[in-house]
């Protein structure tokens, strides 16, 4: 064992020696191989470099291949990979190569741009293209601007299209076919363009993630354009149906926008716009109504100018005006009801407001109508007048017939139109309430009735004054022209009497067309020229007339008792009623009173006095039928003669036979003239 162990030790030493020699040998090998390895590594690096160079050299062709296969993503990657080398050696070794690849990249950029702009590409593809362009350091912002410009242009075109729709609707504007404002073809076209627009917005949101604000703006522009079109239409006058049609289109667009761009809150935005539009629509409808009615009324003046001979021009205009008022108001109400009945979300939201607007609209409309009436009658040319209004009528004289017509029309509005409109409003436009309770309802019929009653009375009064003024001019001329102190013997009834009677004839002609006859004389009335406002349909007026009749009866009783004492005041200046007789009689009485006043200002010789006596006596025979109030007329005629006698230096009246004879001559002459005009 010991031997073995000693032997092992010796073996171990031998092993160590061997290892050491192996180590030194391998070190030797190592050092001898080192140079080679260095060389090989150098060669390897060169190879890599050469490969890269090869890549750079190949880049243009490779890019070309990519362009052909449209593998733009690869192309961009290659190009970007080559970038550092180009940066380092682009100016020297790889000049040609760089130029060629840049050209290729140029093509790529162009293609990519084309891709971005192309609507046929998928959104994903276009978004990628933008990304690639961005990697190529291409100024994408410019692209974006261009794209949005394009979108804006698209909007403008869209809007042009809607203008065309408008045009179509305008040409189709007949009252019957206003229903199809948007014919199916163009509405389909509109729908598809809107869809396109919505898609574009959807795409751009993805393509340009930071473009939201711009898109919101564009969507709002779309709504604005829509409402601008609505606004233009409203200006040109349109029906509720058309408005609703437009609102429907708008609303569907809005919903689409909401879908693709919820951040824009386009529905709220358009609600505000729609609110304004409906409000404007209501206002404009009323102003058109006002224009329509005024136009109808003004036909009186036009006819006068053209000189159309009609048997009852005033009456026909009155009827037309009444119809214009009632029919116009009813149409307007019907029209507005469509707005209320519409189930569109937009309309539902505006319902309460619309009711208030309609009520306010009517209130305002009647206020304006009243103003217009007073203006037309020439009563309100005082104070601060709207100049544009004044110029129209100011130059021409106001026709008395027009004033009379306005009087009766005011009465009609008070008694028939307002009650009907009130009823209609109560049934369909009552639950407004957006106004707040403290203000009460916007439409107050009692106030309007009061206003129009006042207006009617004012106009009637004005008519009487206009007519008496005209006669006053006649009388003034008659009494201021001759020298009454040197008057010659009366040979015939003076011509002014004829003129006076002519005036009364004209007044009767006008009054007959406009005003109803008094009830007690109803049997005189022929159906052909009566007014259509049947007094039966109007309990209010019946009542009033009855009252005035009893009043009249009472005053007649009084009159017989008081005979010719102090009844002058009671009888002459009575309140004017809306009847033919009342108006004619009032004018007659006022004119005879004027006659008396003119006589009182003169001094007469005997002949002058006799002339007055003769004229008055003739008037007495002819005026009998004119006046309903014979007693007052007689009294006034007497007063004229008395006044002439008082103002006469030598009041000796004509002998009755001479007076009779002269009157007979005149009567014969007049009837002869009437036979052969």
């Amino acid at each position: 064992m010991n031997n073995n162990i000693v032997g092992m030790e010796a073996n171990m030493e031998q092993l160590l020696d061997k290892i050491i020699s192996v180590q030194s040998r391998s070190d030797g090998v190592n050092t001898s191989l080192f140079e080679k390895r260095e060389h090989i590594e150098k060669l390897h690096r060169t190879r890599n470099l050469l490969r890269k160079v090869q890549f750079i050299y190949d880049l243009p062709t490779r890019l070309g291949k990519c362009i052909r296969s449209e593998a733009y993503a690869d192309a961009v990657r290659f190009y970007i990979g080559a970038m550092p080398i180009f940066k380092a050696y682009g100016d020297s070794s790889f000049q040609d190569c760089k130029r060629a690849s840049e050209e290729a990249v140029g093509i790529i950029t162009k293609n990519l741009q084309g891709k971005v702009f192309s609507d046929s590409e998928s959104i994903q593809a276009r978004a990628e293209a933008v990304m690639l362009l961005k990697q190529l350091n291409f100024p994408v912002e410019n692209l974006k601007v261009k794209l949005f410009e394009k979108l804006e242009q698209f909007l403008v075109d869209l809007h042009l299209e809607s203008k065309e729709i408008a045009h179509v609707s305008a040409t189709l504007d007949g009252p019957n076919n206003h229903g199809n404002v948007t014919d199916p073809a163009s509405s389909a076209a509109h729908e598809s363009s809107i869809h396109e627009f919505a898609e574009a917005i959807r795409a751009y949101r993805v393509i340009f993630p930071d473009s939201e604000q711009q898109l919101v703006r564009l969507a709002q522009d779309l709504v604005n354009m829509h409402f601008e079109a609505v606004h233009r239409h409203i200006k040109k006058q349109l029906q509720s149906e058309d408005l609703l049609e437009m609102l429907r289109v708008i609303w569907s667009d809005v919903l689409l926008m909401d879908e693709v761009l919820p951040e824009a809150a386009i529905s709220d935005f358009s609600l505000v716009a729609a609110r304004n539009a409906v409000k404007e629509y209501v206002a404009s409808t009323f102003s058109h109504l006002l224009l329509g009615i005024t136009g109808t009324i003004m036909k009186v003046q036009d006819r006068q100018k053209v000189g159309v001979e009609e048997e009852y021009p005033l009456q026909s205009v009155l009827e037309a005006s009444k119809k214009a008022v009632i029919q116009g108001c009813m149409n307007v109400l019907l029209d507005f009801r469509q707005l209320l009945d519409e189930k569109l979300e937009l309309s539902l939201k505006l319902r309460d407001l619309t009711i208030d607007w309609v009520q306010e609209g009517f209130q305002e409309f009647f206020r304006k109508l009243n103003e217009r009436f007073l203006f037309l009658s020439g009563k309100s040319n005082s104070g601060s007048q709207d100049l544009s209004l004044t110029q129209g009528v100011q130059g021409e004289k106001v026709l008395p017939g027009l004033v009379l017509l306005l009087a009766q029309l005011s009465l009609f509005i008070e008694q028939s139109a307002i009650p009907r409109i009130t009823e209609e409003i109560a049934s369909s436009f009552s639950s407004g309430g957006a106004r707040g309770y403290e203000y009460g309802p916007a439409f107050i019929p009692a106030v309007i009735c009061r206003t129009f009653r006042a207006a009617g009375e004012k106009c009637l009064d004005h008519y009487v004054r206009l007519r008496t003024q005209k006669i006053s001019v006649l009388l003034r001329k008659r009494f201021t022209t001759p020298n009454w102190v040197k008057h010659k013997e009366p040979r015939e009834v003076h011509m002014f009497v004829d003129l006076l009677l002519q005036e009364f004839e004209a007044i009767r002609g006008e009054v007959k067309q406009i005003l109803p006859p008094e009830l007690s004389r109803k049997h005189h009335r022929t159906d052909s020229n009566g007014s259509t406002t049947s007094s039966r349909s109007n309990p209010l007026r019946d009542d009033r007339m009855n009252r005035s009749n009893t009043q009249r009866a009472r005053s007649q009783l009084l009159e017989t008792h008081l005979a010719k004492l102090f009844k002058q005041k009671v009888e002459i200046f009575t309140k004017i009623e809306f009847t033919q007789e009342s108006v004619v009689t009032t004018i007659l009485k006022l004119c005879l009173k004027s006659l008396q006043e003119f006589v009182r200002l003169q001094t007469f010789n005997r002949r002058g006095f006799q002339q007055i006596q003769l004229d008055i006596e003739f008037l007495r025979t002819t005026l009998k039928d004119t006046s309903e109030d014979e007693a007052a007329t007689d009294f006034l005629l007497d007063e004229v003669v008395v006044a002439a006698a008082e103002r006469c230096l030598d009041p000796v009246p004509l002998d009755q036979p001479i007076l009779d004879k002269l009157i007979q001559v005149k009567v014969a002459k007049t009837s002869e003239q009437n036979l052969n005009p």
Partner: protein
Amino acid sequence: MQGGSTGIGYGLKYQARCISDVKADTDHTSFLAATLSLKEENEVHLIRLSSDGNELICEGLFSHPNEIWDLASCPFDQRIFSTVFSSGESYGAAVWQIPELYGQLNSPQLERIASLDGHDSKIRSVLWWPTGRHDKLISIDEQNLLLWSLDTSKKTAQVQTKESAGMLHYLSGGAWDPHDVNAVAITCDSSIQFWDLRSMTKTNSIEHAHVRNLDYDMKKKYTLVTADDEFGIHIWDTRMLNFPFLELPGHAHWTWTVKCNPEIEGLILSAGTDSAVNLWLASPPNGDHLTSESLESPTRQVDPLLNSYTDYEDSVYGLAWSSRQPWIFASLSYDGRVVVESVKSHLPRK
């Protein structure tokens, strides 16, 4: 409306048209009224309101040669007044003086201080210098405007200037502007003319036909009130003549005359041929004059008519405020009845 129960009456013998306040009488409220009778002896009455205000006393009664169409009291001498008169064809105007001791004379005669001769057409009106002692006087005939220089002590009247308004204008009356003594407004057939007395030229006009009468507001400058046959009363701002700034309905028939109260701005009396005298308060139009007429506020509009005095039996042509007691006025109807009334109870309380 209440009738004449509040008024104090006084009867003239004949028909009459004109009455004037005796402005120069500072001790009494007195009026001059004159008759209009073609055939009878015409009279001028000096009427005084008793100190207790319950009675009208005839202070003096003077016969006048012709029927009197216009009468105006001298503003500085209570015994002097002017008349415009006519006898059938001929017209004349004169300045008269009431004799000093007229109370002691049996049948006192008026002394004619001056005849305003030199007119060649119908004389319509004589105007005195608006206030104070001044020698100027204007007479208006149908075609001419004459400015007189009157010397009451020497008892002469001389024409200073005479200017024709043109043939066809038919002047009918006028009013002397109390705020501008060089300005006179004259009514004629078809317009109201404004004359400057320094140059005796027409400076302006309002084309507004058939104005019967006009009066300047004593308190408010540039305010002229006119009365019209058919269309009532118009109130004008003389700086803006295109439109009257206020219209009042006037009377049921012609509005014959208007008189502005000497103390209260906007208080106007009008008399008409409907046998009534109306008392108006014309509130100056505020900015929202037009809107106040609108439907919203029908109640806010105040009726300008304060009262209508209707207890007359004929047309009222004569009207005069008392300048001594400016709440009292006298009216004269054609039948010769003078009625003196107080407006105090109708004035709005302040």
